[in-house]
C-alpha cells in the first residue's frame, strides 16, 4: 500500500523534488493505479518466460569502425547552461 512516506521515499530515489500538495495528490492517484495492477495476480505465470524483445533479435553485433560524428564537441555541449571548460561541462564539486 502506498502512503505519503513511501511516495516521498520513491521521489527521493527518483531525484525529483515534490511539493507537499504533489505528494498528497500522487499518493491517492498512484494507490489507485497500483490497486488496478493487482489484476495481474489473476494470471498464472509459473511456466511463462519473460519477454523483453519482441522481434526475436539477440546480441546484435556491429563492426567497430570509426565513422565521422554528425556533430562537433561544441554542438554537443551547447545545450548545457553550466560553464563550459575545455569543451567539457563543468559540474558542481562533489568532494569538498
Amino acid at each position: 500500500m502506498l502512503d505519503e512516506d513511501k511516495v516521498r521515499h520513491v521521489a527521493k530515489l527518483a531525484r525529483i523534488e515534490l511539493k507537499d500538495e504533489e505528494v498528497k495528490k500522487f499518493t491517492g492517484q498512484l494507490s489507485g493505479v497500483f490497486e488496478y495492477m493487482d489484476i495481474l495476480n489473476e494470471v498464472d505465470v509459473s511456466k511463462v518466460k519473460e519477454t523483453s524483445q519482441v522481434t526475436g533479435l539477440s546480441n546484435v553485433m556491429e563492426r567497430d569502425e570509426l565513422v565521422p560524428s554528425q556533430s562537433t564537441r561544441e554542438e554537443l555541449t551547447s545545450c548545457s547552461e553550466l560553464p563550459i571548460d575545455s569543451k567539457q561541462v563543468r559540474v558542481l564539486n562533489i568532494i569538498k
Partner: protein
Amino acid sequence: MADLEKLSIVDAAKGLREKKFSSEELTRACFSVINSRNKDLNAFISLDEENAYKTAKEVDDKFAKSENLPVLAGIPASIKDLLNTKGVKTTCASPILKDFVPPYDATVVEKLKANHMVMLGKTNLDEFACGGSTEHSCFGVTKNPYDLTRVAGGSSGGSAAAVASNMGFYSIGTDTGGSIRLPASFCGVYGLKVTYGRVSRYGVTAMASSWDTIGPFARNVSDISYVLQAIAGKDRRDSTTPDKDVPDYSSFLDKDVKGLKIGLPKEYFGEGVQKETADMVKAAVAKLEKAGAQVVEVSLPYTKYAVAVYYITMPAELSANLERFDGIRYGKAPKDPDNLTDFYFKARGAGFGEEIKRRIMMGTYVLSAGYYDAYYKKAQKVRTLIIEDFNKAFEKVDVLIAPVSPFPAFKIGELLDDPLAMYMADALTIPINAAGVPSLACPCGMSAGGLPIGMQIIAPQFEEGRCLKVASCFEKL
C-alpha cells in the same frame, strides 16, 4: 489552382512534375492554412518557414532542370517535436528541453531530408510522448479540428490535427501505446504503427525502449505507403532494426480482398467499448465481407491485462530513459543548490510536468528493491501471453480488425484528474504494442455527434503491406 494543400501526395507529386504548380506554392498553401487555423488548434510548437521555403526553392530548381526526384520531393510535412531535427528546436513539449537545439537529425528526419522533404515545423505532443490527449504539453493542449472543445488525442495530437486540417501532407509521429493510432482516429486520418524495429528510433527521445515505434500520419492509404517506404529499414545506429527486406509498399495498393481472412477479436467489442463505435467498425468489416473477405470471430483472452502490463513496464523503462535529464547536459540549472543531489532534485522537480513526475514515480517504484519481481518481472511474463494470443490468432486469420479507441474524442479536461481513466483510453491499442505487430488506424465513419471513429487493421510482424492492402480496398468501398 485552388486547394493545393488538400491534394494527395501522388497528385501533388504529379503536379510538380507537370509544372502545374511549384513546391513553393504547395508550401505557401500549407502555411496559409497554418496562419489561419493554428491559433485555434495549437497543432504546432514551432514553425520553420525560412528553411521550408529554402528547400522548396531548391526542389523547384531541380524540377526545372528535369532532375529525377523521389515522390516525396518538395512535399510539405511536419514532424512530432520528439524527433531530433538538426539546428531546429526540439522540445519534447517539456520545460526541461524548452530551449534544446539538437546537434543532429534523427534517422527518420535524415531519410526524409534525403527525399527532399519540406519541413513546415514541429508538432505538439504530450510531454515526452506520455499521454493520450496532448493535454500534458507545456505548450498547451492541441484541439480537435472537428470540435475545438475536445482533445485531438495523444500523444501525437499535433501531427494528427495538422494532417486532418491540411497543414501539411503528412506528419511523422511515434506510437508506444497508441500515440499514433488514437489521435489519428480522433481526428479522422490514417496513422500507421509499424512493427517494432521496422523504422529506426535513432534520434527520437526514448520513452519506453521496448515499445517505441515511429510512423506516418496521412489523409489516404497510398500517402501512408510512400512515407513508410521512405523511412523503413535497417539502421546501424539502432540495433533493434532487423536486416529484413523492405517490400515495395505501393504494390499492396488497389488489390482486392477476395479470400482474405479477417478476425474480429471479441474482447475489442465488449465491455467499455461504446456501442456506436463497435457497430461502426462492424459495419466497415461487413463491407469488406461483401467485397469477398471471410470474417470470423477470434479471441485474444489476455487483452484485459495489457493496460496493467504496459503501465508497469513502460514507466520502468521511461524512468530509466529520463534519468539523463538532470539539469547538467539538459535543462535549466537551478540557482544556488546545496550540493549535487540537491541540484538534481531541483532541476528535475522544476523541469518535468505532472504526468512525467507521476510516471517516473511509478517506474521507480516498480523497479525498487523488493518490488521488481512482483511487478516488472511479472508484467514481462504476462506480455509473453499477450504475444501468444496474437500468434495463435494469426494462425487462423490474415488480419485482425478492431476499434482503435473505445469512444470518440473526449472533452478537454474530462479525464485530466483521473489518470487511470485516461490510461484506459489506450486499452485497445496497447496490446498491439505489447506484441510488436503493425496496425493501421483508418477512419471508418462519423458518430451521431459529428466526431470521427476509427478502426485498426492489425497484421503479423513485418506485414505492414497487409494492413495497407485491406485499408486501400476499404477506402474505395
